[in-house]
């Protein structure tokens, strides 16, 4: 994952949200929610980075900050060496053609007042790519590419099933011919049989169009099928990052290990060590001191150092980074 061949290079991304004020502003001062706290990664052109974590870990905020749907507080997002976060107006709009997003909720991500044709014609119009009959042809081709009958162009979102809507969402993202897609939990709202269809579609599109993906998900099993590299987030920080085969075979951070062991496997005969973490994810407004994972960490070597000294994300094996003082002695 060297920066030189990277299409997308995220460096030191930070996003803090002002927290809620207690007692209508009369109480304690606001606690800042550290949604994204110094996140860095790079994605090689044509590859997929899986960004994994539980709800509230900041993974979706990362995706949206990269696209500047949310303005970050600090950091750089380089695409082909161009820093996205300092671009304005026209340049930003031009760059938006190169990166697109697909959302989780197939019900919320399509405008209910528009037909599929109108939904897909809009980006073509915004970027002056096609109008009239030409647009019609491109829309038909897009629908076919995502596995939908072009007849669906006349339908409204509520007339489609969840899987069909998600395909329209993908077609909308592809309409401007981007190089990079942020896929924000694109299959987690779908039924398993449909989820498999959409995952296959995403894999096909990536090959055909040479796309680069940031695949955000909470499900490590899903990520395993699509990601070349995986980054695991906990409380706004990346705690482990490695090539997928390494991460699944030999995780170094105890959180990754616990997460892997918590995923149910559809095999009643599977003999797997089950690590059940105690407690809940702490609030990102009040992250624990030291290692953010220490209150739940099942590592036998956990000690005073974990309570006080935040571990740095460091290379613990070739290509594998982990933020744990005891990454050399994994669970």
């Amino acid at each position, binding site marked *: 994952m060297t920066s030189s061949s990277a299409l997308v290079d995220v460096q030191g991304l930070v996003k803090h949200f002002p927290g809620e004020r207690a007692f209508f502003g009369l109480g304690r001062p606001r606690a800042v929610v550290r949604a994204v706290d110094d996140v860095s990664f790079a994605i090689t052109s044509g590859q997929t980075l899986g960004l994994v974590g539980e709800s509230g870990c900041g993974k979706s905020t990362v995706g949206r900050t990269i696209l500047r749907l949310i303005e970050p507080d600090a950091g750089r997002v380089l695409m082909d060496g161009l820093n996205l976060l300092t671009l304005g107006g026209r340049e930003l709009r031009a760059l938006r053609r190169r990166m697109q997003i697909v959302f989780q909720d197939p019900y919320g991500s399509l405008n209910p007042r528009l037909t599929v044709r109108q939904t897909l014609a809009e980006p073509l119009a915004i970027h002056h790519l096609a109008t009239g009959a030409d647009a019609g042809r491109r829309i038909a081709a897009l629908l076919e590419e995502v596995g939908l009958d072009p007849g669906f162009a006349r339908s409204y979102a509520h007339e489609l099933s969840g899987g069909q809507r998600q395909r329209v969402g993908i077609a909308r993202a592809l309409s401007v011919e981007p190089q990079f897609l942020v896929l924000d939990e694109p299959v987690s709202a779908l039924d398993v049989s449909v*989820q498999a269809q959409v995952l296959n579609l995403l894999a096909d599109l990536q090959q055909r169009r040479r796309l680069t993906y940031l695949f955000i998900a909470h499900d490590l099993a899903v990520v395993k099928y699509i990601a070349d590299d995986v980054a695991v987030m906990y409380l706004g920080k990346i705690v482990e990052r490695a090539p997928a085969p390494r991460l699944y075979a030999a995780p170094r951070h105890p959180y990754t290990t616990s997460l892997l062991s918590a995923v149910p496997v*559809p095999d009643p005969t599977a003999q797997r060590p089950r690590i059940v973490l105690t407690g809940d994810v702490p609030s990102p407004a009040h992250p624990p001191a030291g290692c953010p994972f220490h209150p739940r960490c099942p590592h036998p070597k956990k000690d005073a150092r974990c309570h006080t000294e935040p571990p740095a994300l460091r290379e613990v094996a070739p290509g594998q980074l982990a933020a744990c003082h005891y990454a050399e002695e994994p669970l």
Partner: protein
Amino acid sequence: MTEPLLRVRDLKTYFVTEHGSGTARAVDGVSFDLYPGETLGLVGESGCGKTVTSLSVLRLIPEPPGHIRPGSFIEFAGRNLLTLAPRELRAIRGNQIAMIFQEPMTSLNPVFTVGDQIAEAAIVHQRLSRRAARARAIEMLKLVGIPDPAQRVDHYPHQMSGGMRQRVMIAMALVCHPKVLIADEPTTALDVTIQAQILELLERLQAELGMAVMLITHDLGVVAGSADRVVVMYAGQVVEQAPTPDLFARPLHPYTVGLLASVPRLDAPSRARARLHGIPGQVPAASDWPGGCRFHPRCPYAWDRCREEEPPLLDASTGEPGSHTVRCWLLTEPQRRTGRPGS
């Protein structure tokens, strides 16, 4: 074999569609048994009728637009729940058969403390005093693994995390020590690490309290880890039913096979962009089930008979007769399965 605790026979729950013109046959002739102390997994995708089945058991279907057809039969402790008077039914609900739901956020009343909500069932069904009920609520919170139960009892739902709220829901359901717990997607809204906690909790409580659990889920992984027997539903019907080890080792219905092949597996060999074998097409609408076998439009093996004639549940057991049943004509012509895709 012991007597079943809950016996569901030919359950049909229909809904009138919006225009009032059609009928959605959400549950259409479902039969199964629940034995004391076992966990029965009810599995299927959205729209298969698994939730409506579970709601029908306690007659929680909104009427109208829904109604349970005459001829349906749900026997619990020797009585047909479908013919009980409302007062008798209430004495069973929450007392002998309890239920937990998917959304711990909306299933708890935001204006009462969790203690009040847990105590309520004890006050209603066991006529405990307020003081005794409160003590019971604290005891239940402790049972479901909530730290500082004596303080937590006075908290409101919004002061708790999703996992905590689901524990409270479980405490509420178990306060009267029910014989049957119906758990409708109890972990779907939760993160994996919290899901693991809740599943472990349910397992422990089941062993301690000796209740039977009907676990409704879309997640085959959850079923594999928790259920003793599995009922697979598709299009309002039971399509396959078997002991868990048997079902996963020898899935017979093409839908079960397809479902298993669709699941991304953590235990699969690691290779990026490996293909999953999905099931083509999608679940049809409940107002318009296909004729013949309801799975035939999506089935890779379907032949004329599947299109014309609806298969009954056929016995495919290798052990005890009736332990593994499948609604598929392939059982009568097994040679048709060879050399086809899908597994």
